């Protein structure tokens, strides 16, 4: 069982959250010419590495806010959580 510290509500069990995938993926900028490769990287290609991973979770059965979580994909240790609006440093 994971325990995730929601930046809005505090420590909550994994059961209250739903997963949203890699948080470092950025949509190509609006209004600019976008290459096929940029679309591929946005839509399909992922690093999905072993180790530290920034990812999105939604506190679905709580405040319903999207948050960013830094978690180790091998040990499940959670290092840091941020509000969705906060930049990953």
């Amino acid at each position, binding site marked *: *069982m*994971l325990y995730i510290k929601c930046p809005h509500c505090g420590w909550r069990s994994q059961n209250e959250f739903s997963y949203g995938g890699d948080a470092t993926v950025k949509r190509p900028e609006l209004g600019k010419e976008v290459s096929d490769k940029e679309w591929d990287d946005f839509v399909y*290609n*992922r690093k*999905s*590495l*072993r180790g530290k991973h920034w*990812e999105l979770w939604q506190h679905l059965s709580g405040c319903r806010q999207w948050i960013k979580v830094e978690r180790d*994909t091998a040990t499940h240790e959670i290092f840091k959580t941020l509000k969705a609006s906060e930049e990953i440093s």
Partner: protein
Amino acid sequence: MQKYSIFSLMKNAFSNHEKWDLAWKDPLPKKEYDVVIIGGGGHGLATAYYLAKEHNIRNVAIIEKGWIGGGNVGRNTTIIRSNYMHDDNALFSEFGMDLWRRMSQDLNYNVMFSPRGIINLAHSDAQMNVYARRGNSMRLNGIDAVLLNREQVKEIIPMADFSENVRFPIFGGLMQPSAGTARHDAVAWGYARQADSMGVDIIQNCEVTGFDVKGGKIKGVRTSRGDIKVKKIGLCVAGSTNVLAEKLNMRLPIETHLLQACVSEPVKPVLDSVVTFGAGHFYISQSDKGEMVMGGDLDGYNSYAQRGNLPTLQHVLTEGIAMMPFLSKLKMLRTWGGIMDMSMDGSPIIDKTHIEGLYLNCGWCYGGFKATPASGWTFAHTIAQDRVHELNAGYNLNRFNTGQLLDEKGLGTKTWIS
């Protein structure tokens, strides 16, 4: 190589079975090979076997970080089927079914292939329509499919919940009678033993630490047991695909996720086919030892842990109990997890890459075990001939660029919910 037979069994009985040859050797890595296969799982071992058998390429090494058969080929629920709608998936899998039927004889190793049939349960009229369509597509591709009504399902699996007022009543199901199960470890060991006998070096406890790429061509591979010169490398590492792709500066349409399975305590024979729940994600069969073998959803977030988390297991077994209430009385014997290479459209990739001499075999999602022989056969062809076979042409890497996705389920790119 010593042939396994009733006579060799009797002969060795006189020496208390202490004088059998080793099934495969434990060689030191050589300085140079024609082909190196990275990953000693089912697909890697099968690839090496077919390289030697079909293409007479025998100067081959399989490099495995741990021990052969210790990954997903030893962690699956042993289901073999070809009940796909799309042509590329159906023809590939049905080719594999032929190889499964002959495998014990081909490998001189009893893989205990048991074509006991698979039933996908339907829980609404709409689902029956979808299954009828899939069944028709299967039959057009020469695959056996039978649409069962509620009464017919009840005859085959009477222990399922056919009572009134259940949340997901059983309307019927789609059955592929020729589908089944096999002894998964035997598949890995059988391929390993035959590949070894044809000259393939199986090198275990050997981790790949890097690649030697010059001018867009593969020149060699660096390992924890020394550098190896080689012009062709086949990557067959399932959940570790992204870790090695990173060393090659490649980004792939793959995410690594954890899938759990479990077995109950052994009970007397109660279920003689493979059954899947149609209102969720749960599948079950009974092993020859009597254990109920069960699995379902991914844990739901990127994971390399190779061990599972309780909430998913609880969710999956809730579905199982809804389908077959007697399961609630059983004790759990073991649970375990394996890391899946989940592709963005749910279909695998067997293809060349932009690096000359680097071949890719990944993206097997939930269905890697059943694909073992067909994957090995087509991957060996792709490596030996330096071109894809028509059977794996649909499994190209370029489809994510051109938009010709092979989305059997049509669920999109959220790998953790597909």
